[in-house]
């Protein structure tokens, strides 16, 4: 572990290689390779981690890149995030954009301008995004979803994936939420109690208790919709 100060006024870098731990604090760059543990909250300009990382606190960064498994015991605030692997956050996530390739779980709300990628997620609170475009390769779960545009597709549907999905429910590529609200909703393989939107497309494999739409609704013949209501004028 090395920590070098680059003069007064500039933040130091935190570099962890191999197995090690570090204190929290404010850094310019945080680079972790291997098994790293950070004992307190972190704030950094760039956070890059490969391997298994645990941060015992919150993380605030402009850019975050994770390859591997990361546990964060607090909220995450970032500008852009690139995630390959598994991220677990004991709090909310707030940021501009997130590119997902793997699994993401959050205990709180998740607020993103742009959310796209392949994989699965569990958001225990509200998932609030501007543009959301995901290909599910695992379960997508949120208590509530509020978006401007949402597009959900199933990821690669090969035999192996289907087999695994049948055995392990977590891997079943289905989006489920209590309420989904948005302007443009383009859904497939989605289960929700209530879906409300302006322009709604209910595609293959969907099941919804109630669908409310303002301008347009398309329902796939195979989809199951309890009740359709046109709202507004």
């Amino acid at each position, binding site marked *: 572990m090395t920590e070098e100060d680059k003069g007064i006024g500039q933040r130091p870098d935190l570099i962890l290689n191999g197995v090690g731990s570090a204190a929290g604090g404010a850094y310019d760059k945080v680079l972790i390779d291997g098994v790293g543990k950070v004992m307190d909250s972190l704030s950094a300009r760039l956070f890059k981690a490969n391997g298994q990382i645990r941060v015992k606190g919150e993380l605030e960064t402009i850019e975050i890149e994770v390859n591997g498994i990361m546990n964060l015991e607090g909220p995450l605030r970032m500008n852009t995030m690139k995630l390959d692997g598994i991220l677990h956050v004991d709090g909310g996530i707030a940021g501009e954009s997130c590119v997902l390739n793997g699994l993401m779980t959050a205990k709180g709300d998740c*607020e993103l301008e742009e959310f796209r990628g392949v994989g699965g997620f569990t958001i225990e609170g509200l998932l*609030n995004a501007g543009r959301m475009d995901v290909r599910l390769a695992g379960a997508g779960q949120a208590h509530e979803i*509020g978006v*401007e545009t949402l597009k959900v597709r199933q990821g690669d549907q090969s035999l192996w994936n289907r087999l695994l999905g049948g055995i392990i429910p977590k891997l079943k590529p289905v989006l489920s939420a209590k*309420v989904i609200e948005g*302007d443009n909703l383009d859904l497939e393989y989605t289960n929700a109690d209530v879906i409300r939107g302006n322009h709604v497309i209910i595609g293959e494999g969907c099941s919804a208790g109630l669908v409310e739409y303002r301008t347009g609704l398309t329902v796939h013949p195979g989809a199951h919709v309890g009740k359709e209501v046109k*709202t507004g004028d």
Partner: protein
Amino acid sequence: MKDDLISKKELLDLTGISYGQLYRWKRKQLIPEEWFIRKSTFTGQETFFPRMLIQARIRNILNMKDDLSLDELASRLSDTEGYSEIRLSKEAIIERNIVTDIAMSAYGAAVQSKEGLYSFGQLLHLYAADTLLAKGDMSLDEGKLLLRTLEKHAGALTGKPCELYFVRKMGVALFLLAPSPAELFFDEGVRLVAKVALGDLVEQLKGRLS
């Protein structure tokens, strides 16, 4: 209490905004988290908002959004700090139509600070009096009583939601300031003339100032 809340659906119908806009504004912190009130209804969980506050806020956003970016708006709306710095002269207030001429000439002199300028708090008090005057509920003399009440006690309630009650019994006017939600019970002869949430006034005043 029930009619003080508005359901999300009703709000969207009334204001003509879409789900996407509402959520974008929430993301940009134009609408505070605390205003999203979750309640269970027979259709499951629904979101409600404090009726007056959210409507005033949405009007403000819609009015300002053409001139400002959402981020500028957010900082404008969220911080009362920016407003606490405000010092306006009498002329500026009348010119910008924040408080009417009548209220200004009746109460202005009593409220203003030494330099003849008005802070946000003082402006709010004037605005409150002006609102009640405009509704025709209050006479000019009673307004003086109102301003004295506000000046003396509003400080103790800053930052907390509170409501102003204006009651009359046998022609005698009384003003009450109470933190909300509070339920007040009066005897029979008392007539509740007006009830104003100060939070709404703050919101409206912000709209006029920007």
